[in-house]
């Protein structure tokens, strides 16, 4: 899509706001609608937009396969790790109350970390699926 100047400029203008909105949805999920799942999808759609306009190759140079695959695994690891941390501190699996000095802070910390894990996995998987499908014919 090298010839569409308007699309290229508008994409570059929109991209930071899409990614910022994704981060807002990610970290504001306790207070408003949203959470890790939605944030991951929005974050991925920002990069998918970039790939649609500038080509999958350009998007893959920013996020190589290795980073995406590590992201897929890391998200689930963070989620499971929070559960194991609660186990090691002497409570039930995924009981966040022990993660801080009092129960409410522990719950906040746990929900924050868990949503971060969900967001990481969802964003990496969505981008991986799109990049894999889109680059099938180029390879």
């Amino acid at each position, binding site marked *: 899509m090298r010839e569409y100047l308007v699309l290229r400029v508008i994409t570059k203008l929109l991209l930071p706001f899409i990614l910022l909105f994704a981060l807002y949805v990610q970290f504001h999920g306790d207070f408003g609608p949203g959470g890790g799942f*939605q944030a991951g999808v929005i974050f991925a759609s920002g990069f998918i937009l970039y790939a649609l306009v500038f080509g999958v190759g350009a998007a893959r140079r920013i996020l190589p396969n290795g980073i995406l695959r590590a992201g897929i695994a890391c998200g689930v690891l963070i989620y499971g790790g929070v559960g194991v941390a609660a186990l090691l501190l002497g409570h039930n699996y995924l009981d966040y109350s022990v993660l801080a000095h009092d129960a409410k802070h522990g719950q906040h910390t746990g*929900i924050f970390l868990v949503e971060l894990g969900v967001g990481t*996995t969802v964003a990496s*998987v969505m981008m991986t699926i799109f990049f*894999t499908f*889109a680059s099938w014919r180029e390879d």
Partner: protein
Amino acid sequence: MEEVVNVVILAFMALSVVGIVLLRNLMAVVMLSGIYSLLAASMFVVLDAVDVAFTEAAVGAGVSTVLFIGTLALTPRREKPPAHKPLLPLIVVVVTGAVLIYGSLDMARFGDPSGPIHQHVAPYYLEKTGPETGVPNVVTAVLASYRGYDTLGETTVIFTAGIGVILLLGSWRRGLTPPPHREDDRA
């Protein structure tokens, strides 16, 4: 006023489904399914379920449409005409739909506060979320804390989907030729 909005949204949803069934051009079908998801998201907003609406708009209308288009780049753009009349599937669908509608007659009236759905665990979550977790959004507290196991399962499903796509279509198959793509299949 809300009834009017409901009727308009549901009518558009029904129209887009009829379009999806009748059209043979798969690109138009993908666009209509995206529109259907967006209408469903508006429906959830009307029902005050903003978290669900958010997910439906981001996943259903956004990313899945893009993924469908990515798939269409690998497949013919036109659905093959069916080989025989779809009578049997039609009967199955009509009977299933009739049974579901018959079943819905026994459900509690919409929004009835004495319905079983509002008497089970919902009051506990609404009362205890504030004191126990300090999180203002009850939906987030239920998803991430009270029902943390379910969300861990969901994340694992997404993880598995990603691994499956990498294994089936990933770069280790670069030596293999892509599926044949006949020009006459294109619309």
